[in-house]
């Protein structure tokens, strides 16, 4: 094969770094100096143009962004995170730590995408990261000059203030450091215009990875009749077969892959998902995968999502996730042009791109000879193969025949070069002696293989060390899964195929399909490898940085520093140096880091331990996780039957749990809309003086039926219910076992064996579950059924002195005091609709709650509004209701805060001493009887005009401190229309024993300081005269 004529020339001239903006676009687009003339799986008939940092370049359909950049001679792709070192492409897969780029523009911009997995499309716009002002000239690279001053733990040490100052220095410097740090940048436009879908699927066998083992497993399981899902992160099936020119059953590997794909496509119960990464393995064989439906297109096709999240429940899982090659730690091993040997073969064989023109191959694994052969076959000069092993195996013969120098017993001690990439390597005999310089522009590292055990580790077990492979392999399965092929250390092609077939057949059998016998494995001709000798790192001869983790800029020296300073366990090492904590999760770094630490500690590698892998395997966009549950679909919305009327009549809405409730109804006043204060005060005044109606449908409603309903009430409420007569209602206060208030509401007896009770809006679900729990788990002997009827009933509070007169116009029964006294219940028709009328009051006025079936709710509401027109009837919202309940001192959410007892709320008298109930024993706790407990009081500003807010601290003296001992806090506040000045409820130590005292309500946050007078919590009609009569 002949190399492109201008390959050496353009490379030597540093074409990769020339400012391409200056070149005519057409010229740049036509020019791919490093594209090989033949071969590859790219479509030469479909050239594509794309931009990198604004320069117009060209590639071919089938390219990755990385292969297209290399084809154009672009070797400098990004700057590193900490030192801003120039970086190129290290890998050809999803393990890439270096080549992180931003893709697309505007709201579709996506940072931190690995160029090695981004498929090229027409018009792709990519930008490099971590460089300012430009990739070639980066001011942040000054950090590299300061590198000796920025070791591991630098930030912890430098910005930890001296005793007494705490983190002050960090707080000051943080903003400067943050500006210079971070991976990528967030999109500067929004919202994301694309849709993301989610889908659930149940399968018999999930096969992860469609390399030789995964394809074989899917074939075996599919032939056995199982429902199979085969997912692979790449666009093409084949995995490692895409990289090397193997021969399977006498055919080229791609022909075998095509035959396998076509057989799978013919099986009705087999689903094949390319471009799909299984990123999480959770409990009970539940796995998540993201399918990149349209990432390879400029934008999604109409009505198609950008990505799709798959939620998979699999009976059996086969993990055929392959292995990633390890880099070797030597000085300046991060120069652009230093890459994994497997990556170099991928660029040559799959993408028909020469990653360089003069190569040095280095490693203790026979893959170095395979790499040397592949490069030579593509016309790339292999200057030397550096083999640390003393004895060279038969694999070397081919390389030697090809004219390459074989240096056994040697290591690469340093890569030489600059931002333009590697220009030479320094090679030294392990036995010692002077180093030798070998010119090259490509260094291939064959450091051995790390099985991808991430998903297996997520499924439960810790990986275990295999000394022969010098790698971590899957531990004993905790879930219904098995690994196959390279993922469990079976690196050889023939072993992968046989292992995959066996795993697929076994998985199918375990799921109930077939006899478990594996189909006959295809034949593969392979040479036997010489024993592998891992070379974890090459000691420095002085100068250069030896990178272990490229993405986090962690060097071998950082690992040594961590060891010296005592951060020796793998968990400490990781956190102190950030080894493996990048978006790549250290896929290429972790094992080397562990090995170096093990060597320093003189332990075997498994003695250092390994960290736990956690989802996601590769980064997943928020969009895919959120799916369609965005915007209005983020949560379900509950609307009452009268909702549309509220909106049409000017009500802004407030969320209460999932409910939307009207806050007030804005009218026009003096030619302008009312303020919220004007609206809510007007509504409250109307209720106090006339009549108003309020939609209280959101209260929780529960019906209890059965002969033991009264016994249940007596056990779950702290007050007594034995005397509750049919047709009567009673306030009920429910406690937790520990004696604190759980919820309150109204309990009405509709019949001997039938109870209707309400809960607060917020606690409806909790109270229902509380009742069900005691009925099923604790007191199964009680014959009671509980049913939630919240949504079946519309509830309308009719409140005010004229409420009875209004209701009398619409009810077909007597609603007078005799037949319907305070706390009475009757059945009647209201506006022709069968209704339950409860005479209960939250506002302190004479009031009724009219419950009608929800589908008639709006009708009754409108009938009430029409019938009360001459009474100036008004609807009132949450604000007016809250104002009136504060005036009355009724506790609500802010007072029922999970810390108050009935006595704290002034309701100690309610608590029955004649029965056992949930919370009674809890109330006996000494702490709940402390007279200094914070108890409910009312507060009025001493000047009768200063505003109060909820959440103010109540103190004896505003001038003390800090610290100033708090006596309590305000819980709710309102402008009292009845008193004409602000009032508040508060929980204050000692409670009403402080009645008449002057205290201060202060808010250090807002600077408010108000002198207040302690009063009873009920500000209006404490005798309750307005309720009766």
């Amino acid at each position, binding site marked *: 094969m002949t190399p492109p004529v201008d390959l050496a020339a353009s490379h030597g001239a540093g074409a990769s770094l020339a400012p391409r903006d200056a070149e005519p676009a057409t010229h740049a687009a036509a020019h791919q100096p490093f594209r090989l003339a033949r071969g590859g799986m790219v479509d030469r008939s479909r050239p594509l143009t794309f931009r990198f940092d604004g320069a117009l370049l060209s590639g071919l359909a089938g390219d990755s962004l990385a292969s297209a950049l290399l084809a154009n001679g672009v070797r400098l792709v990004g700057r590193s995170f900490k030192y801003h070192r120039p970086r190129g492409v290290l890998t050809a897969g999803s393990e890439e730590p270096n080549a992180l780029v931003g893709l697309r523009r505007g709201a579709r911009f996506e940072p931190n995408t690995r160029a090695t997995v981004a498929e090229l499309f027409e018009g792709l716009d990519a930008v490099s990261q971590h460089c300012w002002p430009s990739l070639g000239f980066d001011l942040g690279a000054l950090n590299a000059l300061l590198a000796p001053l920025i070791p591991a733990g630098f930030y912890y040490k430098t910005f930890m203030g001296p005793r007494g100052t705490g983190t002050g220095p960090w707080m000051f410097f943080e903003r400067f450091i943050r500006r210079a740090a971070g991976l990528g940048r967030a999109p500067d436009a929004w919202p994301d215009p694309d849709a993301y879908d989610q889908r659930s699927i149940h399968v018999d066998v999930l096969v992860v990875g469609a390399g030789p083992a995964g394809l074989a497993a899917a074939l075996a399981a599919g032939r056995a009749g199982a429902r199979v899902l085969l997912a692979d992160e790449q666009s093409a099936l084949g995995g490692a077969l895409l990289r090397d020119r193997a021969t399977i059953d006498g055919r080229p590997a791609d022909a075998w892959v095509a035959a396998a794909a076509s057989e799978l496509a013919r099986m009705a119960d087999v689903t094949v998902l390319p471009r799909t990464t299984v990123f999480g393995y*959770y*409990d*009970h*064989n*539940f796995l998540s995968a993201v399918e990149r439906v349209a990432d390879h297109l400029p934008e999604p096709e109409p009505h198609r999502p950008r990505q799709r999240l798959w939620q998979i*429940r699999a009976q059996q899982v086969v993990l055929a996730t392959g292995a990633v090659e390890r880099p070797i730690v030597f000085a300046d091993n991060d120069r652009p042009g230093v890459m994994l040997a497997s990556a170099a073969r991928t660029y040559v064989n799959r993408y028909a791109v020469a990653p360089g023109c003069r190569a040095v191959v280095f490693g203790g694994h026979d893959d170095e000879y395979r790499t040397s052969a592949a490069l030579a076959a593509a016309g790339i000069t292999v200057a030397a193969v550096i083999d640390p092993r003393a004895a060279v195996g038969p694999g070397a013969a081919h390389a030697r025949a090809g004219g390459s120098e074989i240096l056994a017993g040697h290591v690469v001690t340093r890569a030489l070069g600059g931002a333009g990439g590697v220009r030479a390597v320094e090679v030294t005999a392990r036995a010692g002696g002077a180093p030798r310089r070998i010119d090259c522009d490509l260094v291939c590292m064959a450091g051995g293989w790390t099985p991808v055990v991430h998903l297996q580790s997520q499924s*439960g077990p810790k990986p275990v060390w295999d000394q022969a492979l010098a790698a971590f392999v899957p531990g004993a399965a*905790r879930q219904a899964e098995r690994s196959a092929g390279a993922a469990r250390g079976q690196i050889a092609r023939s072993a992968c195929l046989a292992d995959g077939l066996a795993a697929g057949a076994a998985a199918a059998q375990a799921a109930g399909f077939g006899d478990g016998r594996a189909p006959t494995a295809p034949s593969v001709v392979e040479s036997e490898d010489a024993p592998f000798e891992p070379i974890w790192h090459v000691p420095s001869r002085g100068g250069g940085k030896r990178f272990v983790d490229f993405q986090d800029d962690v060097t071998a020296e950082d690992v040594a520093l961590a060891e010296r300073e005592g951060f020796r366990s793998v968990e400490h090492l990781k956190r102190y140096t950030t080894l493996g904590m990048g978006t790549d999760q250290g896929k290429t770094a972790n094992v080397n880091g562990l090995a170096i630490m093990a060597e320093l500690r003189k332990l075997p590698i498994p003695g250092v331990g390994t960290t736990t892998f956690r989802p996601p395997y590769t980064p997943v966009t928020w969009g895919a996780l959120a799916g369609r549950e965005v915007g209005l679909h983020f949560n379900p919305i509950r609307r009452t039957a009268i909702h549309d009327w509220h909106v049409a009549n000017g009500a802004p809405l407030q969320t209460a749990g999932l409910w939307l409730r009207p806050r007030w109804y804005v009218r026009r006043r003096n030619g302008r809309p009312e303020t919220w204060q004007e609206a809510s005060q007007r509504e409250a005044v109307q209720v106090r003086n006339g009549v108003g109606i309020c939609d209280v449908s959101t209260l929780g409603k529960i019906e209890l039926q059965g002969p033991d309903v009264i016994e249940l009430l007596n056990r779950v409420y702290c007050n007594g219910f034995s005397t509750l007569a049919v047709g009567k209602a009673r306030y009920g206060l429910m406690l937790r*076992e*520990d004696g604190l208030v759980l919820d309150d509401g109204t309990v009405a007896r509709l019949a001997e064996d039938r109870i209707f009770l309400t809960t607060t809006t917020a606690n409806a679900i909790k109270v229902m*579950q509380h009742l*069900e*729990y005691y009925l*099923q*788990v*604790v*007191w*199964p002997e009680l014959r009671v059924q509980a049913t939630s009827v919240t949504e079946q009933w519309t509830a309308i509070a009719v409140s005010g002195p004229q409420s009875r007169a209004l209701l009398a116009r619409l009810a077909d029964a007597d609603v007078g005091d005799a037949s319907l006294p305070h706390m009475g219940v009757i059945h009647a028709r209201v506006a022709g609709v069968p209704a339950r009328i409860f005479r209960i009051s939250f506002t302190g006025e004479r009031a009724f709650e009219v419950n009608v079936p929800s589908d008639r709710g709006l009708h009754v509401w409108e009938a009430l509004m029409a019938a009360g027109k001459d009474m100036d009837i008004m609807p009132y919202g949450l604000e007016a209701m809250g104002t009136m309940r504060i005036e009355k001192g009724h506790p609500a959410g802010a007072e029922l805060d999970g810390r108050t007892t009935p006595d704290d709320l002034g309701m100690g008298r309610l608590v029955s001493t004649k029965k*056992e109930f949930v919370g*009674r*024993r*809890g109330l006996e706790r000494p702490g709940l009887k402390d007279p200094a407990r914070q108890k409910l009081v009312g507060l009025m500003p001493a000047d009768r005009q200063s505003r109060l807010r909820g959440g103010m601290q109540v103190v004896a003296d505003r001038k003390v401190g800090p610290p100033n001992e708090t006596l309590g806090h305000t819980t709710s506040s309102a402008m009292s229309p009845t008193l004409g000045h602000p009032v508040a409820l508060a929980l204050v130590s000692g409670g009403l024993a402080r009645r008449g005292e002057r205290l201060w309500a202060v808010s250090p946050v807002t600077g408010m300081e108000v002198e207040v007078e302690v009063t009873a919590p009920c500000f209006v009609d404490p005798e309750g005269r307005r309720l009766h009569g």
Partner: protein
Amino acid sequence: MLLIACPWCGPRDQTEYTFVGDGTVRRPADSLGAGETEWLDWVFIRDNPRGPHKEIWQHASGCRRFLLVTRDTLTMRIERVESAVGAAVPGGRAQGAAA
């Protein structure tokens, strides 16, 4: 995500269930007369075992039955799911699975 086999509804995703609490505690029959330890054990004291554990879950988005689930906290394996009726009754034990 756990897969819990409701005796009434069949195997369902964890998202249909609500975790309720420890399934080994018993409510004293006479809470006022119970000894201090007995009462504290019911309200406050919970074990955090490594291994098999009995827990109460409610099939909240399904049949709303309370279930006694024997789950291994280490392996997440669910060994048994049965009705939790009476599970907190002193001296009592859960009835068998769905009748």
